[in-house]
């Protein structure tokens, strides 16, 4: 029987460690690599030009790598649901492969495509390679055994509650076997065995579009600071490892002005688009560590960034409302302000706080900012100063940030705004002091806000405090050439800390004076971790490099699109003993059982 494969690229824009692509090639007569995009949708979507450019560059790179293997990338215009029936018929497709997408939207889309493929008698093969671990496996471990809580209430957490603290997540990961080893890159021989004829007019139908074709105005668009593509990603990976080897220090570096700037060894956008496999990164880092540290196995902290990414993917995979406050069971409901004007000032870098404005400018221009810079602007927008919902901030990041994944972006925003994950909220980044401590010279500000370049160091973080003569000498009058600060930070943070305290005291039922005790105690860290038995029985869940019956089972479990919506779980047992049902009522009143006592 003839096997005509289509590999559908979405994320995972690479030829190395691409298990689904390997499946496409396996014993196939023809293989076509497809990327589907809708040019009409592109312009209207809430995705900025830098992100589109990165994607197109990645596709170009993929196409050129495929050319080297005597193949091509087929960029098909349209929507997957409309495109596939046509392709199935036109190319007589028998096998469709793609990388597993753990995000709720992706799962739903893929579920529909798989169903459609079945109708066309097209076999679908899905492989996990965007995350290190099988996320459903982590969630499964998190949920056994069921929780037993005092007060005779046994709380059966619904299957599908992810770990809610990073600590818990780390503990679960510690109990897992190592991630699946990466696969080698696709070879010429493999490709040759299933060569597909490329039509002469291929470029006419299937070329990678230009930004202009997508409706972007590229006039005045500077060169890309982050160039998309697998080749660039692998290049950076090497540099990254070289530098690590040279420094021979695996501790997290302390932040300084250099860390604020785009680094030629930065990898996060490449992991986002899958130009770099996280497993390749993981194993390279691990091998390097073991080489330099005489075969000591590395601590989890070595993989900090990768694990954070994994953590947020896990938290989001079964929660379609993960990116919003309403209807999101893990999100604390905070009465944020609606203030479009203030939001615009923040998003456009017009807050009047040079540190915040410089970061937002860098984000808009280059598409990447350091994680501490993210903390600074996120705190400023939400719980620190403006008291605007993290959802608005998340949408701005989604537009501008190259490495903004749905799960990671929403998760980080919830974390930074103390809306989930049991954060202490006392620590509020000062829009003046934090920047000044990070870069006392102020050169970072001068680079992104040239207007302020002649301000002396003393005033560059708070130009409004500079005497008129200094402002004049620097050719930048505050209130004329550069905005006045939009908020009195001292006053704003005073108000906001009180509000956060109110919100959290309500959660924790704590009424004392201690600020720190207002945050609910974390229940899940006290929970026992699953025993070794359950781990052993689960090892088949990890996707092996080659298909096996066990794996197809696990893949079936990967599509639990049913029943997701109804899940609910609570922060802690207190939530259960309190009237969670009544919380929804408009006039919910928790009446004390005895009469209100008049205090004489």
């Amino acid at each position, binding site marked *: 029987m003839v096997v005509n494969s289509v590999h559908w690229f979405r994320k995972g824009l690479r030829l190395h460690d691409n298990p689904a692509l390997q499946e496409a090639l396996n014993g196939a007569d023809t293989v076509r690599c497809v990327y589907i995009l809708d040019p009409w949708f592109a312009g209207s979507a809430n995705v900025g030009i830098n992100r589109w450019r990165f994607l197109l560059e990645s596709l170009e790179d993929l196409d050129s790598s495929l050319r080297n293997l005597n193949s091509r990338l087929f960029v098909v215009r349209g929507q997957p649901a409309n495109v596939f029936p046509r392709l199935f018929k036109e190319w007589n497709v028998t096998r469709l492969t793609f990388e597993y997408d753990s995000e709720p939207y992706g799962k739903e889309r893929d579920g529909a495509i798989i169903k459609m493929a079945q109708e066309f008698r097209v076999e679908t093969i899905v492989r996990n390679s965007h995350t290190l671990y099988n996320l459903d496996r982590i969630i499964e471990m998190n949920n056994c055994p069921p929780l037993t809580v005092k007060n005779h209430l046994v709380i059966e957490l619904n299957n599908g509650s992810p770990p809610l603290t*990073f*600590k818990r997540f780390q503990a679960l990961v510690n109990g897992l076997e190592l991630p699946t080893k990466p696969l080698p890159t696709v070879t010429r021989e493999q490709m040759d065995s299933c060569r597909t004829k490329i039509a002469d007019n291929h470029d006419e139908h299937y070329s990678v579009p230009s930004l202009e074709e997508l409706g972007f105005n590229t006039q005045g668009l500077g060169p890309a600071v982050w160039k998309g593509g697998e080749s660039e990603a692998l290049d950076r990976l090497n540099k990254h490892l070289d530098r690590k080897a040279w420094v021979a220090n695996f501790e997290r570096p*302390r932040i300084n002005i250099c860390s604020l700037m785009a680094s030629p060894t930065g990898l996060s956008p490449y992991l986002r688009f899958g130009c770099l496999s996280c497993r390749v990164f993981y194993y390279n880092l691990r091998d390097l560590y073991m080489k330099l540290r005489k075969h000591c196995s590395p*601590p989890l902290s070595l993989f900090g*960034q990768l694990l954070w990414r994994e953590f947020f993917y896990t938290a989001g995979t079964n929660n379609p409302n993960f990116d919003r406050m*309403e209807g999101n069971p893990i999100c604390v409901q905070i009465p944020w*302000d*609606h*203030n479009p004007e203030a939001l615009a000032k923040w998003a456009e870098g017009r807050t009047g706080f040079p540190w915040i404005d410089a970061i937002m400018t860098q984000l808009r221009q280059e598409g990447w900012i350091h*994680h501490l810079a*993210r903390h600074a602007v996120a705190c400023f927008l939400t719980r620190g100063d403006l*008291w605007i919902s993290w959802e608005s901030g998340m949408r701005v990041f989604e537009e501008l940030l190259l490495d903004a994944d749905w799960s990671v972006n929403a*998760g*980080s925003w919830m974390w*930074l705004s103390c809306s989930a994950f049991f954060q*202490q909220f*006392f*620590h*509020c*980044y*000062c829009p*003046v*002091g*934090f920047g000044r401590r990070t870069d006392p010279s102020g050169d970072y500000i001068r680079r992104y806000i040239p207007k302020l370049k002649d301000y002396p160091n003393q005033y560059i973080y708070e130009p409004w405090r500079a005497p008129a003569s200094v402002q004049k000498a620097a050719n930048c009058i505050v209130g004329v050439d550069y905005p006045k600060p939009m908020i009195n*930070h*001292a*006053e704003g*943070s*005073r108000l906001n800390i*009180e*509000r956060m*305290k109110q*919100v959290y*005291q*309500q959660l924790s039922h704590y*009424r*004392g*004076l*201690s*600020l*720190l*005790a207002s945050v609910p105690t974390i229940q899940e860290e006290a929970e026992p971790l699953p025993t070794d038995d359950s781990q052993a029985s689960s090892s088949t869940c990890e996707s092996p490099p080659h298909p096996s019956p066990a794996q197809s089972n696990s893949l079936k479990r990967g599509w639990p699109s049913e029943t997701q919506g109804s899940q609910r779980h609570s922060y802690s047992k207190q*939530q259960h*003993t*309190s009237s*969670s*049902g*009544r*919380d*929804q*009522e*408009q*006039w*919910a*009143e928790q009446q*004390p059982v*005895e009469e*209100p006592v*008049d*205090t004489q």
Partner: protein
Amino acid sequence: MKRESIDITLEGQTLHSLLPVAKKQKSERMASSSPHTSSPYVSHPSAGNSPHLDRSAVDYRQLGCVENWEDKPHRAPYPAYPQGAEEDWSITQEPSVEDWEYTPHTQQSEMGRANRSMEGWNMLSIPQRSADEWGNQDWGNLPHHVVLQVFRNLSLVQRVRASSVCRRWNEVFHIPDLWRRFEFELNQPATSYLRSTHPDLIQQIIKRHSKHLHYVSFKVDSCTQSAEAACDILSQLVNCTIKTLGLISTARPSFMDVSQSHFASALTVVFVNSKSLSSIKIDDTPVDDPSLKVLVANNSDTLKLLKMSSCPHVSPAGILCVADKCHGLKELALNYHLLSDELLLALSSEKHVHLDHLRIDVVSENPSQMLFHSIKRSSWDALVRHSPKVKIVMYFFLLDDIEFEPFFREEAPVTHLYFGQTVSKAMLGRIGLNCPRLEELVVCANGLHPLDEELIRIGERCKRLSAIGLGECQVTGTGFVEFVKMCGKRLTQLSIMEEVLVPDDGYSNMEQIHTEVSKHLGRTWFPDMMPTW
């Protein structure tokens, strides 16, 4: 009296399932009639012309109605801040003064609280009795106090429904006890996602139940209109005996945007008419000295709690007048510029009850020009002599090191310290020397110099310190472990950002620090982490 089926949802269960007998009765009836006719008022409130219905119940239905109130989108199932069953300062939960913010919680009182919430459960599951005991009891004949207890556990919407079951229940619905507290929520769709109290309901309350109100709060969003609406309602609360009044801004403080005269006149209506006010929370409002004078003139015997942080129109003399006359005042929250030696002495006078809680916010102007005054040690001493158990909470929001100069030069009885923004190293040094009563210290930021010495001194001399939080600071591994060792298990809250800890010769990696600290605390401990993404 005809039995009506009740379909009240409680904790996700219906009363049916909680009351096995009722279930039985219902199923019997169901056999003879369709489910719809068995509860006509519940599922079809518009059909509310039953002879059994009291007119007043109809009033509520006509508000447009039960269905409408409920149809509004529900927020997420929990942590519902806006509709939450409880509030921070808790007018809605427990109306006692203490509960507003501070109670010296003993283990017992915590337990009491837990038990109480369990009582609710027990009470609802009363009908563990056999069917015989209930026999042919009529639902309408349930003793008043039983229905009242059930009603207490229902939300207003649920009570409205239940009130249309029969005359007796409707009577209970209007029992003043069920109208002791009310929280007005005033929001504009443009500035808030929160729901507002239905205007018709507001009118009904003012007309019918305002005289029953004891505990009243207003929650407003950042829109001036909302704050003005709150003032309009306040102005109508003339025939009241309010004990507790709270004005709360959920976002930007919009009461500050109301004209001062409008605000003052609304507030004084309550001050004058409710002559037994005991708790007032009016932070971030334009309350002024004359309004406070009215408060004192009418409520000096009953006032116990006054929270008025950031009320710029009040002068030190204005608050002094309150302290002089209101001898029952136990809790006070204000900004530092209102704090004076005279005020502390007034609060320490013989006639004055012991003070429980004093909260002081120190906020710098922007740009900061003035230097803060200092308080004499003798005044602090007088306060602590008079009220040995007083908790003194200070929140600092200062930017420049120099602004900290006047503080803690001498011994001060502060118990809780919070430093938003930054705090100077020198100040932290003085805290170790001069704050022997310190229980909680939270430092958001310091500088790049290790705080080892300061921290160790604090650990050594602040013998009651049980909670500490450090944000952007630096402490070496050795210094930190030394500090924790000194405090040991009394450190019940230890929240340290991961970046604070600097590995050094003594402790070269994080794991060592965690292990050692956990050992001294007697529990597993980790620093707080932030995503590196």
